[in-house]
């Protein structure tokens, strides 16, 4: 099947869905097999069969343990995280009509980090508030601050092509990163501080099954919300007023979808720390492949994001023998040049 065929939707919806799920399964399987101890696909599948269907293949318990307890949840969390961050970026780009919008650049990730650190280190919320909830509060606060700053700077959140929201996002990121450092320095002991710093750069090492059960429902919720509003997102192509005149309840959709974005970003940050560039770059890649209509763009973005982060995680584990690179390093190494490309193409479009 050619790229052109996918682009011109000659392939049926069911066909596309099947291809997408198959790709996802292959990516997760790759995540489970590749690593410092390579494990064959057969062993990985047999482990799955043993665990899920109660089959009784005789397996090396260590290999089975690596697959089931470490690599599989890690790959699934990576997939959820990649999909979640990518659709968050897509929603922000569509609603703010800014090609450079993404949860990392707009300070939402930084806010989530601050919220998470405030809960874990400074003990804010007295143990009642969970890490994810703290991250969510931080994410929403950061976005509101950034949006207000952009508006005060004359950009507004509905205007197109203005750099204000991105500049405000940079200011917001700096502020919240500084707050995070402040909290860590003030309240954390040396060991905590080291752990937190590693986590902040993005780290999937700690991902276990409970994380899967948190990440998966949240990302599915976000995905459903975006697909449900696909036509509304399309209608923002000519701006918020145009969307309103096409019958979109603009304020409600903005609150709902940006809220969903903040929730997804916050949960992902609370599990794996803040990972940059996924939300920025993946939606552009998806637009290039399937076009601008959100009915197809949202699932494609989620799928590519999932596959990309699994691949980035595999690279982070295998690139330097005996060392795990923070995954944020890999995504930035790929993402920064791609970001440059978006900037240059944006200039040509004007």
């Amino acid at each position: 099947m050619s790229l052109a065929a996918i682009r011109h939707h000659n392939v049926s919806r069911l066909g596309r869905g099947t291809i997408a799920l198959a790709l996802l399964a292959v990516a997760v399987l790759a995540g489970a097999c590749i690593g410092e101890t390579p494990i064959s696909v057969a062993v990985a599948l047999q482990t799955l069969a043993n665990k899920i269907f109660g089959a009784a293949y005789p397996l090396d318990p260590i290999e089975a343990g690596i697959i089931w307890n470490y690599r599989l949840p890690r790959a699934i969390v990576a997939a959820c995280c990649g999909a979640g961050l990518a659709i968050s970026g897509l929603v922000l780009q569509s609603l703010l009509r800014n090609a450079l919008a993404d949860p990392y650049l707009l300070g939402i990730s930084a806010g989530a980090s601050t919220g998470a650190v405030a809960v874990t280190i400074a003990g804010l919320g007295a143990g009642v508030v969970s890490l994810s909830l703290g991250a969510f509060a931080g994410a929403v606060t950061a976005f509101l601050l950034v949006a207000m700053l952009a508006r005060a700077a004359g950009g507004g959140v509905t205007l197109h092509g203005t750099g204000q929201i991105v500049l405000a996002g940079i200011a917001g990121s700096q502020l919240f990163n500084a707050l995070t450092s402040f909290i860590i320095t003030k309240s954390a002991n040396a060991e905590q501080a080291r752990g937190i710093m590693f986590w902040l750069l993005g780290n999937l090492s700690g991902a276990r099954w409970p994380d899967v059960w948190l990440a998966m429902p949240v990302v599915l919720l976000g995905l459903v919300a975006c697909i449900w509003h696909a036509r509304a997102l399309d209608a923002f192509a000519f701006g918020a007023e145009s969307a309103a005149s096409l019958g979109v309840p603009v304020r409600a959709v903005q609150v709902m979808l940006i809220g969903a974005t903040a929730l997804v970003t916050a949960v992902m940050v609370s599990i794996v720390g803040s990972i940059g560039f996924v939300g920025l770059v993946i939606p552009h890649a998806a637009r290039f492949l399937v076009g601008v209509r959100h009915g197809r763009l949202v699932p494609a973005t989620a799928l590519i994001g999932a596959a990309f982060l699994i691949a980035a995680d595999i690279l982070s584990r295998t690139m330097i023998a005996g060392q795990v690179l923070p995954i944020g390093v890999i995504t930035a190494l790929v993402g920064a040049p791609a970001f440059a490309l978006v900037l240059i193409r944006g200039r040509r479009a004007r």
Partner: protein
Amino acid sequence: MIMQTRNLGWSARGLPIVEAIDLDVIAGETLGLVGPNGSGKSTLLKLLAGIRKPSSGSVAVKGRPLAAMRRREAAQSIAFLEQHAETSEAITVRDAVELGRTPWLTALQPWSHKDESIVAQSLADVDMAGFGQRSWATLSGGERQRVHLARALAQCPEILLLDEPTNHLDVHHQLSILELVARLPVTSIVALHDLNQALACDRVGVLARGRLVALGAPHEVLTVERLHAVFGVRASIVTDPADGARLFRFHALQ
């Protein structure tokens, strides 16, 4: 009366931009809105479209208050063609026109053959039938304006609100857009800069400093005295010997 406003007003930071507008729009008419820059034409159209909330007064569509209608429902009867609607998305002409079907589609009422044929008809109506696959970025200003109009037509509205639809168009396309709008079996309210074009409307409303200062048949409303008072120009009326039509000629005041 297909649309009525009572004491309609909108202010920004306490400064009234539009105030005390009482307007009765007759079903099927083409109503021109004229006025100098900053007289509130665009704001009034946005209030009529329901995409801006009035600071005072109300708008009613076929007797029902617009403020009480759901956005989707309002968009099924009112289409609004704004000024300067641009996009950097790599959309095609067809994508843009299909957006016009948004108020009619839900998750339970997905895209159908009916929508398909409405989009095709709208493109044909604005003379853009062969342009479906063209990308937005390659269109000229006039083509973009016609695609916007096709998008508004695809909404199948009863009321069409147009904010200076002939801006930036060459004279041929100015005339063809206005003729198309006049031919459409819908009520249209059109903000216009060209007073000679306004003469072709069924009725004309004159806005000055946010108030509706005159409303009626073009030649009764657009008098030499009023043009002097509202626009600050000296106008003379000349008659086209070809068909006897009366036209304005303008001179700056000394």
